[in-house]
C-alpha cells in the first residue's frame, strides 16, 4: 500500500481529476464537429465549448426572485458531485489512491446525488418547463438506474468485486470473450445514452418544449451557474465514455506511474474516446429521438440486456 | 426384407401417382388397389416374421411387437379405402369439396399410410420422429378439406398443437442421443433402438428421466393424452369421415407404440436407480386422467363425431394406463385392446359417416330413427357402440377384463376409478345412442347407398376375438408381451 500514499500517486490522482475537467469540453466539441460534418455543415471549431464556458463564466448570473438558496447552491453541488464521481473512474492509470473509493455503487450514488439536486433546482423556480424537465428526468433515470446496476453486477460477478480498479485489473489479467460482458456493454451503452441525455432519449441541442429533458431543467440558469451546469453535463459524458472505454477495452491503461506508461495511458484513452465520440456522433445523426413514452421501452431493453448478461454469466461462464 | 420394401414403397408410389391422376373414379379405385397390395405385402411380412423371427437390417426392424401393428394398419387402410371410394364420390357430388381437393385427398391418404408404416418399422429413433411428424403433416390439409371455418380452425389447432408436442419429443430424442453417446462408441448407432435397448442399463438415469418426460409429453400429444388432447376432438370431427376413421384407428396406435418403445429403453435405464418405475407411474397417471376426463366430457357432446373422438381419448388413456401398469397380464390386455379398439373405432366412424349422410347433419339432436330408415346402418351403429362400450362377448370386454384383473392385482383401489369411468362412458354413449337409433325418424329421411361390408368384417373380427382368440394370435401377442415386459403370460 506504500505507493498509494506517495506524493507521486496523489499527484497523478489530482492530475487525472484536472484532466477530466479539462478534456470534457474537448470531447463535446469533437462530437459536435463530427455531427456537423455528417450533416454537411462546417460546424463550430472543436475548441468552441471552451470559449462558451469562458463567456458564460464572465457573464452576470441573473436569478429569479422566486428562487430559493437551493437554486444558487445547486450548480456547485451538481458540479462537485459529478467531478468527484468522475475523479474515481480510472482514466489514465488504474492504481490511483482514489481507487479506494472507486466503487461502482459509490459512482452511481454520486451521480444520483447530482441528478437529485439538478431536478430540485429545475423545480425550484416554479416555472412550467423546469417542473416538466425534472419529472421527465426522474422518469428516465428511475428506469435507467436498475439497468445500470444490473450491468454493474454482471461485471462485478466476474471480477468478484464492485471496485472499478479491481474490475479493470481483472479484465487486463484474464481477458476473454464473454457473453455477459457483451450484454453488459450493450446495456451500459443504452443507459449511458439515457443518462447523458443524448439522442435517442433526449436531444442536447433542442429547446422545444415537447422534446426537452435536460435542457428544461437548466432553462432558468445564466452566467456562471449555467457554465457550471453545462460543464457538469460534459464531465458526465466524459465519465460514461471513460467507463465504457476502460472497462470493456482496457488495453493501454497505465498500471504504474512511470511517465512512459502514463503517456501511453493518456494516448490510449484519448484514442478510445475519439472512437467512442465518433460512434456517438454517427448514432445521433442516424437515429431519431424517440417520443417520451417510448423511453421506458428503450430502458427496458437496456434492463433486458443487463439481465441476459447476468444470466449468461451464471449459465455460460461459471465452470464446475 | 423384400416384403418390407414392398410394404413401404407401394404407398409412396401410390401417393406419387395419385397426386397427378385427375379423374375421380379411377383415383378411388387406384387407392383401393394400392391399399390391397400394401396389405398383401404386410400379410407376407407377418408370415415371414411369424415363421422365422424378427427381421432387422438397414435401420429397419420388424419384430413381434410391431409386425401385428403393421398388419393392422395395412388392413384398416384397406377397408377404409374401400369405404372411402363411394363415400368421397358422394361428398364431391354434394359439393362439400372440389375435384382438386380429391387429388390431394388420395395422395395424402397414401402418404399418410407410408409415414405410419415407416414409423412402425424403423429402428432409428430419429427416423421415427420424422415419420410421426410426417404423418401429422400429411393429414393436416385433409382435416381442413371442407374449408368451413370450423374445419380450418380444427386443422390449425391440430397443426399447432401437434407441432409443438412433436418439437418437445425431438428434444427428448436429442437427450436420448446425448445419453447414448457416453455408452455407445459409434455415433451413427446412437439412435438405433435395438443398440440402445441392449445397452439400456448403462444409460445415465438422470438424462433418461428428463428425456422420457419430454418424449411422453411430445408423443403423448399425438396419442391424445389429457391435457394435450385439445386438438383431437376438433380434428377427428371436422375432417372427412374416412380421415376420422384412420386417425382414430391408426395414428393414435402408432404414437402409443412410440411411447411404449421409449418406455422400454427408460425402464432398462432406470432399473438400477432410486425410482425404477417412474416411467410406468407417469404413464399410469396420464392414462388415468385422460380416461376419466374423456368419459366425463363424453356426456357434454352435441356432435356425434366429437363424442366418438372423446371415446378414442378414453380408450387411449386406458391403453396408456395398461402399458404403464406393466407386467404380462396388463401388457397382453393392452396389446389386445389396441387391436380391437382400432377395428371397432374405424367401424364406428364408417357407420357414423353413413348415419350423418342419412340425417344430413352431425348434430346428435337431429339424428333420429336410423333403425327405421336404414336397418343396416342402425343395427351396425348399435352393435358397434355396444362393442366399444365394453359389452361381452366383444373383444373390448376381454381386453378390459384383463386390464381390470391386472389392476386388481397391482393397485386395487384404482380398479374403482376404472370401473367408474367405464360406467360413466357407457352411460354417456348409450344416452346419446338410444334416441339416434330408436327415435322417431323425421319426415323424408331416406336410406343412402351404403357398403356395410367393411363394418361387418370389422365387427365380426372383434366378435371373434372376444369369443375365442385364435391360437396363433394369442401366441403372437404373447411373444410381443415377452418382448416388452420380459415375461410370458401364457
Amino acid at each position, binding site marked *: 500500500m506504500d505507493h498509494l500514499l506517495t506524493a507521486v500517486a496523489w499527484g497523478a490522482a489530482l492530475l487525472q481529476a484536472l484532466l477530466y475537467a479539462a478534456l470534457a469540453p474537448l470531447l463535446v466539441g469533437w462530437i459536435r464537429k463530427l455531427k456537423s460534418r455528417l450533416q454537411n455543415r462546417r460546424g463550430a471549431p472543436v475548441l468552441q465549448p471552451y470559449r462558451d464556458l469562458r463567456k458564460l463564466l464572465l457573464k452576470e448570473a441573473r436569478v429569479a426572485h422566486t428562487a430559493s438558496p437551493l437554486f444558487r447552491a445547486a450548480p456547485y453541488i451538481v458540479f462537485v458531485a459529478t467531478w468527484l464521481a468522475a475523479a474515481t473512474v480510472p482514466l489514465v492509470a488504474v492504481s490511483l489512491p482514489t481507487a479506494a473509493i472507486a466503487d461502482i455503487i459509490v459512482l452511481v450514488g454520486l451521480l444520483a446525488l447530482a441528478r437529485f439536486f439538478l431536478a430540485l433546482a429545475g423545480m425550484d423556480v416554479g416555472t412550467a418547463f423546469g417542473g416538466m424537465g425534472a419529472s421527465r428526468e426522474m422518469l428516465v433515470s428511475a428506469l435507467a438506474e436498475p439497468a445500470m446496476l444490473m450491468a454493474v453486477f454482471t461485471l462485478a460477478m466476474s471480477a468478484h468485486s464492485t471496485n472499478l480498479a479491481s474490475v479493470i485489473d481483472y479484465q487486463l489479467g484474464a481477458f476473454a470473450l*464473454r457473453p455477459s460482458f457483451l450484454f453488459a456493454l450493450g446495456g451500459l451503452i443504452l443507459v449511458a445514452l439515457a443518462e447523458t441525455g443524448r439522442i435517442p432519449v433526449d436531444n442536447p441541442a433542442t429547446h422545444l418544449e415537447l422534446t426537452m429533458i435536460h435542457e428544461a431543467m437548466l432553462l432558468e440558469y445564466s452566467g456562471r451557474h449555467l457554465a457550471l451546469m453545462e460543464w457538469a453535463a460534459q464531465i458526465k459524458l466524459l465519465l460514461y465514455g471513460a467507463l465504457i472505454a476502460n472497462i470493456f477495452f482496457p488495453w493501454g491503461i497505465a498500471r504504474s506511474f512511470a511517465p512512459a506508461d502514463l503517456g501511453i495511458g493518456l494516448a490510449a484513452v484519448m484514442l478510445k474516446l475519439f472512437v467512442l465520440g465518433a460512434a456517438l456522433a454517427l448514432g445521433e445523426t442516424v437515429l431519431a429521438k424517440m417520443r417520451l413514452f417510448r423511453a421506458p421501452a428503450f430502458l427496458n431493453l437496456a434492463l433486458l440486456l443487463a439481465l441476459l448478461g447476468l*444470466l449468461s454469466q451464471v449459465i455460460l461462464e461459471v465452470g464446475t | 426384407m423384400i416384403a418390407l420394401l414392398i410394404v413401404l414403397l407401394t404407398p409412396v408410389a401410390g401417393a406419387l401417382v395419385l397426386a397427378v391422376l385427375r379423374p375421380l373414379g379411377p383415383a378411388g379405385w387406384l387407392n383401393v388397389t394400392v391399399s390391397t397390395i400394401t396389405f398383401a405385402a404386410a400379410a407376407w411380412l407377418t408370415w415371414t416374421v411369424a415363421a422365422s423371427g424378427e427381421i432387422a437390417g438397414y435401420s429397419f426392424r420388424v419384430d413381434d411387437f410391431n409386425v401385428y401393428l403393421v398388419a393392422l394398419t395395412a388392413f384398416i387402410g384397406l377397408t377404409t379405402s374401400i369405404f372411402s371410394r363411394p363415400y368421397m364420390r358422394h361428398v364431391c357430388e354434394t359439393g362439400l369439396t372440389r375435384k382438386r381437393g380429391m387429388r390431394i385427398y388420395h395422395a395424402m391418404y397414401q402418404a399418410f399410410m407410408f409415414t405410419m408404416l415407416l414409423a412402425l418399422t424403423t429402428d432409428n429413433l430419429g427416423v421415427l420422429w420424422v415419420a410421426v411428424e410426417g404423418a401429422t403433416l400429411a393429414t393436416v390439409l385433409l382435416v381442413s378439406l371442407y374449408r368451413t371455418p370450423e374445419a380450418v380452425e380444427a386443422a390449425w389447432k391440430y397443426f399447432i398443437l401437434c407441432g409443438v408436442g412433436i418439437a418437445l419429443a425431438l428434444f427428448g430424442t436429442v437427450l436420448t442421443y446425448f445419453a447414448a453417446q457416453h455408452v455407445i462408441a459409434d455415433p451413427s448407432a446412437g439412435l438405433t433402438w435395438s443398440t440402445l435397448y441392449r445397452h439400456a442399463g448403462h444409460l445415465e438415469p438422470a438424462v433418461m428421466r428428463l428425456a422420457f418426460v419430454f418424449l411422453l409429453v411430445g408423443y403423448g400429444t399425438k396419442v391424445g393424452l389429457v391435457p394435450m388432447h385439445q386438438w383431437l376432438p376438433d380434428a377427428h370431427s371436422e375432417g372427412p369421415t374416412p380421415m376420422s376413421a384412420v386417425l382414430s384407428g391408426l395414428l393414435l396406435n402408432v404414437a402409443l407404440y412410440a411411447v411404449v418403445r421409449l418406455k422400454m429403453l427408460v425402464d432398462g435405464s432406470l432399473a438400477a436407480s432410486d425410482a425404477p418405475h417412474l416411467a410406468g407411474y407417469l404413464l399410469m397417471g396420464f392414462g388415468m386422467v385422460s380416461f376419466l376426463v374423456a368419459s366425463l366430457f363424453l356426456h357434454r357432446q352435441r356432435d356425434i363425431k366429437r363424442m366418438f373422438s372423446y371415446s378414442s381419448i378414453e380408450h387411449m388413456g386406458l391403453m396408456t394406463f395398461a402399458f404403464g401398469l406393466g407386467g404380462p397380464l396388463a401388457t397382453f390386455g393392452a396389446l389386445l385392446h389396441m387391436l380391437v379398439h382400432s377395428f371397432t373405432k374405424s367401424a364406428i366412424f364408417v357407420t357414423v359417416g353413413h348415419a*350423418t349422410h342419412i340425417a344430413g347433419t352431425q348434430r346428435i339432436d337431429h339424428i333420429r330413427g336410423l333403425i327405421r330408415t336404414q336397418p343396416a346402418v342402425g343395427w351396425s351403429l348399435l352393435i358397434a357402440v355396444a362393442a366399444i362400450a365394453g359389452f361381452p362377448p366383444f373383444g373390448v370386454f376381454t381386453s378390459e377384463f384383463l386390464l381390470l384383473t391386472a389392476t386388481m392385482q397391482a393397485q386395487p383401489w384404482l380398479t374403482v376409478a376404472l370401473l367408474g369411468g367405464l360406467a360413466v362412458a357407457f352411460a354417456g354413449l348409450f344416452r346419446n345412442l338410444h334416441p339416434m337409433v330408436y327415435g322417431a325418424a323425421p319426415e323424408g329421411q331416406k336410406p343412402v347407398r351404403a357398403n356395410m361390408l367393411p363394418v361387418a368384417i370389422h365387427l365380426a373380427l372383434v366378435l371373434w376375438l372376444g369369443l375365442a382368440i385364435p391360437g396363433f394370435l394369442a401366441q403372437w401377442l404373447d411373444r410381443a408381451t415377452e418382448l416388452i415386459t420380459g415375461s410370458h403370460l401364457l
Partner: protein
Amino acid sequence: MSITELPLLQQIVLVLAAIVLFTSFVLLAQARLVAAIHAFAWQGALVAAVTTVVAATGQTPHLYFSALLTLALKALLIPWMLHRLTRRLAIDRHVESLRRPALVIMAAVALVIFSYWLVLPIVQQELAYTRNIVAISLAVVLIGLLMMVFRQQAVAQVLGFMSMENGLFLAAVSATAGMPLVVELGVAFDVLVAMVLFGVFFFQIRDSIDSLNVDRLNRLTETTEEDVAGEGG
C-alpha cells in the same frame, strides 16, 4: 473450467449462443412483422455460425453440411417464403404488439432460469464447453413456445414454431455434436414441408375468417352452445 481457460473459438461459440438467446427475446417482443422475420433470419444465421465453429473446433466435418443446410433453410429460404407470404397477404405493415410486454418478457426470463435449472444437473458430468449451451437451447425452445401462446397473429405463431426448431437444432449441435445426417435431413425436410403447409393455411384462414388473428378461431370450444356441427361429411 472457467471461460478464461477456453480457446478463442470456443469462447466465440458461447458468445454466439448468447446472442441467439437475445434474438429469441427480440422475436418474442417485436411488434412489426417484417422486423420479426428478419430477427428470425438472424437467429438462423447465428445458429449456423455456432454449428460451423463447433465443427471447426471439434473436428466433426459432417457438421459443416448441417450448418450449410441450416443457413440455407432457416436463414434464407424460410424467411424469404414468409416475406413473400406477408406481401401477398398484405400484412407486411402489420404491427401487433403484445398486450402485456413486461409480463411476457419476465415470463421468458423465468423460462431461461427454469431451463438452466432443469438441464444443468444432467450435463454436469460433461467437460465439453458446449454443455451450458444446452440450457440456452432449451430456453430458446421454451421461449418459442411462449411466443406461440401469447402472440395472436398466425404468422407470428409460425415464427415461434420455427424458432423452436432452431432451438432444437442448437440443442442437437451442442449436446451431441449433431445428429446423424439422415435424421438431420429428415428433420429439415419436415420443417420445409411444414412451412409450405403453413403458407397454404394462411390463405385458408384468411379466406374463412377474413383476418389472421387466430384468437378469432374460436368456434370449436367446449362451451359453445351454437350449432357448429358440419353438415354431414
